[in-house]
């Protein structure tokens, strides 16, 4: 074997080993393109299916959005109508509120007037109550005086009875003396003159009159006229008073022509006039001076 052959053998072997190493390294490190292609194809199919699903979902969403848009438009129209109605109701409520505010103001004024009238009536009531207490005290004094007078009267009556008994005894003695005188004078044909006696017959006694309380009083129709009216405090004054029999808590009818205008409830009386509160009956008609008042219609 020549040297050249040996060299060629060695070189062939070395190059073969080198080339085989390169091939093995390349093959071992090469990518699996089939697997990559399969993965890419699979991912492509998945992407296509997802695209189809996304398109379908998009169509569905579009339909839902259109439906919701239509519903929202209907709701907007309904809400617009409701808003207009509520605006109308709000205007109405505002008008009612204004009216109520005016009513409250008028009622407040009426309450103030009524309060003033009540205060005035309270003052009058206190005054009347004081007068009643004074009258009761005076009545008590008069009653005591009456009892004392009755006691004195009884004593006087007892004294009168004793005096009558004494007068009767003296009369009897006088009659006996007269009888004797007549018997004596008959002898001479004369008769004594009989004097007039002032003694009451026997058995007649004077009794004090019992002061029984008066029972029921008969309702008498009282008539008069309205002399003054104050509708601010709803008070009226009439032309008759306690002297005519007017008492507190009596009710008079205010009559104008044939119409009963109002009632007057008396709460204070004086001898020639009386004052009471006005209770309206006829709307729009108020009592005035000159109207007739009467307890009975």
């Amino acid at each position, binding site marked *: *074997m020549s040297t050249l*052959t*040996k060299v060629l*053998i*060695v070189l*062939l*072997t070395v190059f*073969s*080993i080198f*080339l*085989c190493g390169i*091939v*093995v390294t390349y*093959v*071992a490190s090469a990518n*699996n393109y*089939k*697997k990559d292609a399969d993965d890419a194809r699979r991912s492509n199919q998945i992407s296509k299916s997802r695209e189809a699903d996304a398109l379908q979902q998009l169509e569905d969403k579009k339909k839902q959005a259109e439906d919701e848009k239509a519903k929202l438009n209907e709701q907007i129209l309904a809400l617009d109508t409701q808003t207009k109605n509520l605006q109308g109701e709000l205007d109405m409520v505002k008008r009612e509120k204004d009216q109520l505010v005016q009513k409250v103001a008028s009622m407040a004024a009426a309450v103030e007037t009524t309060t003033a009238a009540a205060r005035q009536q309270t003052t009058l009531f206190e005054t009347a109550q004081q007068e009643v207490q004074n009258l009761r005290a005076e009545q008590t004094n008069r009653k005591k005086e009456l009892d004392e007078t009755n006691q004195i009267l009884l004593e006087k009556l007892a004294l009168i009875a004793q005096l009558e008994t004494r007068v009767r005894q003296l009369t009897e003695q006088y009659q006996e003396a007269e009888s004797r005188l007549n018997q004596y004078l008959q002898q001479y044909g004369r008769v004594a003159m009989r004097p007039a006696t002032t003694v009451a017959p026997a058995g007649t006694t004077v009794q004090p009159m019992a002061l029984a309380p008066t029972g029921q009083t008969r309702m008498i129709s009282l008539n008069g006229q309205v002399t003054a009216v104050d509708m601010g405090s709803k008070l009226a004054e009439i032309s008759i008073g306690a002297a005519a029999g007017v008492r507190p808590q009596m009710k008079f009818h205010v009559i104008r022509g044939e119409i009963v205008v109002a009632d007057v409830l008396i709460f204070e009386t004086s001898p020639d006039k009386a004052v009471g509160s006005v209770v309206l009956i006829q709307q729009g008609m108020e009592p005035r001076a000159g109207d007739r008042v009467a307890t009975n219609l």
Partner: protein
Amino acid sequence: MSPMPQARGAKIAPPSNLYTVILAVAVGVVLATAAYVTFACYSRYATIFGLP
């Protein structure tokens, strides 16, 4: 091993198998490489030649 005839009278040298072994190693390496490439191609693409 040597194809050339020995000249008569020349010194007869025993044949050396060193280069035969080297050649055998080279052939084995090439065959192993071919077998590996074939296995790799078949296992990856299910075919040895052509396109899958």
